[in-house]
């Protein structure tokens, strides 16, 4: 097997047994990026020199016997995380020249564990998008069919991992930006409970919804890195002061006795029959492993997309007010007043989707509309949360589709924002409620990957990862790789 086909555990064992060095492993991945990324556009910035220096430090640490299970293993960081001394663009012209003056907490943690950053992964501008077509740096292509989108907003992270240009990548999820792209590229992606992973140094989109996680080839790989990323951080005011569970240890929990709920609203009209067939087969696998399955209802879930498109733009319009052309970021030339400086810097620096969301957010927060839109959406958000609370009184996990269908063609939905927003119809509710959720591969339709979604109760990441791992022991969908990237 080639190095890029090994799991994180196998890479760690190989490094500790000196079968290969971190420098060799890093060079292997940098070589693959050079060979394949022109076709995919999954990286905005490749940090080869920094990576090789980190690899050499990791090799020294391995030789000294001071390594963690992640020391010497490369990764891609989504370009939403601030990386000291390295451009952090967030996929926007606004931050095209922004060199972050500090590290995000998760960057510090993964650097500290000895991981090697290969570069910064492409993404939808300010994480606003479901196809990775809103990036200032151009669309990312899906390695399973380069005429199709990889999903978004973490499109660069998933394309890089799916094509074997990085063994694992960080990602973020405000309304499905980890799970939907993972589903579209045959990966396992997890968004933990809100507050589990620090948001410090993660450029803010919608602060009550944003959460960082990982995309990987398996639940086992995801568990190892999530374990290292998670934990209380005093620098994030919504970080939760609570010990991190043993995610890696939870992988081997048996499925027998697990109660799985199938939300009837998620299997209604709109789900592609090809995707439905894959998910129904996966349910049979879980039953075969000893899980009990029953129908549950999340009656307010049809309102999750409209709720989200009030709450998220409202928070975004407030968060993105910081980009003023004065302190950092793009500044318009040849302006004569302060107001003109603000307006032109923002008009030039933000792309169309970001501008749309800023305007929607400004509108729903403005005098006379606040009650009808923002307050109403916050009340419906409570109804969506209550649905989950009731369901988790009856079941341990909720299982359903991640996306309505397989990856669509580039350009298919770019002229119709509402059609694009409906891509996240199954994923948004978990962000509104704050619960953990993940997507994992469960089959193929028209030779393209189909993902299923697992949702868990607050802080039940371990149980979710365990169920996913047991499913992956019984199936091999997650091991399949796209042709042309061998």
């Amino acid at each position, binding site marked *: 097997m080639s190095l890029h086909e090994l799991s994180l555990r196998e890479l760690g064992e190989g490094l500790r047994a000196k079968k290969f060095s971190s420098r060799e492993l890093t060079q292997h991945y940098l070589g693959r990026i050079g060979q394949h990324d022109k076709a995919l556009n999954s990286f905005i910035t490749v940090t080869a020199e920094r990576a090789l220096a980190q690899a050499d430090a990791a090799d020294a640490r391995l030789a000294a016997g001071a390594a963690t299970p992640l020391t010497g293993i490369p990764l891609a960081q989504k370009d939403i995380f601030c990386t000291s001394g390295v451009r952090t663009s967030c996929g926007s012209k606004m931050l095209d020249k*922004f*060199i972050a*003056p500090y590290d995000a907490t998760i960057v510090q943690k993964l650097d500290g564990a000895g991981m090697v950053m290969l570069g910064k992964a492409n993404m939808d501008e300010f994480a606003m998008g479901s196809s990775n077509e809103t990036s200032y740096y151009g669309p990312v292509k899906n390695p399973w069919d380069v005429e199709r989108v990889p999903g978004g907003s973490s499109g660069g992270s998933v394309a890089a991992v799916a094509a074997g240009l990085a063994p694992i990548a960080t990602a973020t999820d405000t309304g499905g930006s980890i799970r939907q792209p993972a589903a579209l590229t045959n990966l396992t992606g997890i968004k933990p409970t809100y*507050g589990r992973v620090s948001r410090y140094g993660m450029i803010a989109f919608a602060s*009550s919804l944003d959460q960082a996680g990982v995309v990987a080839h398996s639940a086992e790989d995801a568990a190892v890195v999530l374990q290292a990323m998670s934990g209380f951080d*005093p620098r994030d*005011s*919504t970080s*939760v*002061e609570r010990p991190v569970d043993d995610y890696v240890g939870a992988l081997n929990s048996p499925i027998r006795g697990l109660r799985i709920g199938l939300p009837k609203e998620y299997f209604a009209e709109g789900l592609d029959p090809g995707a439905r067939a894959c998910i129904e087969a996966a349910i049979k696998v879980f039953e075969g492993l000893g899980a009990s399955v029953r129908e549950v209802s999340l009656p307010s879930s*049809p*309102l999750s*997309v*409209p*709720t989200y*498109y*009030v709450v998220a733009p409202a928070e975004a319009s407030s968060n993105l007010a910081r980009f*003023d*052309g*004065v*302190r*950092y*970021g793009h500044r318009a030339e040849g*302006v*004569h*007043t*302060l107001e*003109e*400086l*603000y*307006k*032109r810097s*923002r*008009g030039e620096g*933000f792309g169309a989707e970001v*501008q*749309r969301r*800023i*305007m*929607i957010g*400004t*509108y*729903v927060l403005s005098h006379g509309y606040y009650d*009808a*839109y923002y307050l*109403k*959406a*916050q*009340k*419906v*958000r*409570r*109804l969506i*949360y209550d649905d989950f609370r009731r369901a988790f009184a009856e079941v341990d996990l909720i299982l359903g589709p991640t996306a309505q269908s397989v990856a669509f063609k580039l350009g298919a939905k770019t002229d*119709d*924002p*509402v059609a694009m*927003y409906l891509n996240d119809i199954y994923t948004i509710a978990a962000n*509104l409620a*704050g619960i953990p959720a993940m997507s994992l591969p469960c089959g193929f339709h028209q030779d393209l990957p189909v993902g299923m979604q697992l949702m868990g109760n607050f802080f039940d990441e371990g149980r979710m990862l365990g169920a996913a791992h047991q499913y992956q022991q019984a199936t091999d969908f997650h091991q399949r790789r796209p042709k042309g990237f061998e």
Partner: protein
Amino acid sequence: MSLSPEQVKQVAHLARLSLPPEKVEPYARQLSNILDMVSQLSSAGTDGVPPMAHPLEMVQRLRPDVVSEENRRDAFQAIAPAVENGVYLVPRVIE
């Protein structure tokens, strides 16, 4: 719900966004479509439902009132588009 081009211009002004004239009409159409989709919310019965601002029932943490950050003025000004003698430059605001 539909937004007129005049309303779009007003919202863009509030958000401090300059819009080229040819973009106003397409934005008015797209934003109206989004608000149409959002208007489904009015179908939900929410009498007596407390608004939910945040997924976690938590209160703001407090810390001792002592300086915890170092002074990084030079590092932060190094990434500013225009500074001079330690201050940020903006167009003249007082005539």
